[in-house]
């Protein structure tokens, strides 16, 4: 038997052992465990604000941790920092490359980052001395597009790329600290755990991976999706992962049981999930789809309890504010909407 054959056979055998080990701890399903809980009442959110200003498709948005600020990125070549209460543009940052696919707000509120088909992650300082927002650092090393980025602090950021890797960067020196390799398809999305010790990535190999940031290793791999995973997020307590896929479903995986607990799907939904965000308590999962809508799921009952219909094109990004008071959607129709 050739070497490759031998390796594959061994890997398959271990895969079967993992499947068996997961089954061995599956003494209940979430559906069964939540059988006694009533479905949440119909959720009817209204558009409270429309953020107008981008001139092309919006690809990403991210809430700031403090205050009601958020940043959005559009292929009109701009990053805009918005005050979502007044709808004023706090900053409108012109980008070198208009092919932006992601943006992020640092927890401190001092920095924002973005990147896309330029394969780079550009860091901007919002609090520069002369008031001008300038590029602080350009993190270049990925050999594929930048699909997502998230700050750990003002000195570290994690990126995911079409080159199938994720990277932890030292912003100060502009160098790679750790390369997280293992996915066998483009990495499309990432999310950092509430305690900043782990991050999860979703990829075009249909799997989600949990990574230990300091050890630089993959701890767990979650399969089950039948197509690319486009969106990923942590359940608010950091103990579960939610994924959204081109297979038209979202899934909830528990980290301690190392397996899927439930799938959010409906036979009437046949288009891909582009984005997702849990509500503050985790009871609701808001997911954006290719059909221009956002479906709101009761996370425990796996029932659709609401729809946000208001965009005239694909909903590309969604986020719930840190205090859970509002949800923001961004669309290819060039608008952002604030709902609650």
């Amino acid at each position, binding site marked *: 038997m050739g070497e*490759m054959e031998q*390796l*594959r056979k061994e*890997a398959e055998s*271990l*895969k079967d*052992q*993992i499947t068996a*080990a*997961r089954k061995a*701890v599956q*003494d*209940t399903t*979430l559906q069964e*465990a939540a059988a006694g*809980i009533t479905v949440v009442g119909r*959720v009817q959110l209204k558009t*409270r604000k429309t953020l107008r200003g981008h001139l092309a498709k919006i690809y990403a948005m991210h809430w700031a941790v403090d205050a009601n600020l958020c940043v959005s990125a559009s292929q009109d070549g701009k990053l805009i920092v918005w005050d*979502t*209460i007044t709808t004023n543009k706090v900053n409108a940052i012109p980008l070198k490359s208009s092919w932006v696919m992601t943006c992020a707000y640092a927890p401190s509120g001092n920095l924002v980052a973005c990147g896309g088909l330029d394969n780079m992650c550009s860091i901007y300082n919002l609090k520069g001395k002369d008031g001008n927002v300038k590029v602080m650092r350009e993190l270049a090393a990925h*050999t594929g597009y930048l699909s997502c980025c998230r700050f750990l602090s003002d000195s570290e950021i994690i990126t995911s790329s079409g*080159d*199938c*890797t994720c990277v932890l960067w030292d912003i100060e020196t502009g160098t790679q*600290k*750790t*390369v997280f*390799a*293992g996915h*066998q398809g483009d990495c499309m999305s990432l999310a950092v755990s509430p305690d900043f010790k782990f991050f999860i990535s979703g990829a075009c190999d249909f799997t989600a991976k949990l990574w230990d940031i300091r050890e*630089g*290793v*993959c*701890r*767990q791999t979650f399969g089950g999706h039948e197509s690319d995973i486009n969106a990923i997020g942590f*359940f*608010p*307590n950091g*103990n*579960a992962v939610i994924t959204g896929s081109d297979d038209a479903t979202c899934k909830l995986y*528990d980290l*301690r*049981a*190392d*397996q899927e*607990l439930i799938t959010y799907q409906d036979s009437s939904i046949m288009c891909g999930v582009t984005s997702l965000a849990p*509500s*503050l*308590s*985790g*009871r*609701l999962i*808001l997911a954006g789809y290719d059909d221009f809508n956002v479906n709101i799921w009761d996370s*425990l009952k796996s029932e659709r309890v609401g729809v946000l219909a208001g965009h005239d094109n694909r909903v590309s990004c969604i986020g*719930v504010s840190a205090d*859970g008071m*509002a*949800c923001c959607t961004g669309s290819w129709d060039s608008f952002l909407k*604030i709902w*609650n």
Partner: protein
Amino acid sequence: MPVINVDELTDKDKAVMELNQRKLEVKLERWLTSKCCEEMKDYIQERVEEDTLVKGISEEKNPFKEKGGCIIC
């Protein structure tokens, strides 16, 4: 932490990496799903009352309320 250059990995390197990854994962200690579900339900129940998107919010308390007209007293 050594920086891997993914482009330089051969098919065999990738197969070895995948095998080693599975060797790590097979050793995981897994919780019973019943315990995980209970924890999740408890977490949600403890916080759902404060979850604006679930419970709604009154106009007066809503920081995002649309600005109304002027009231002349």
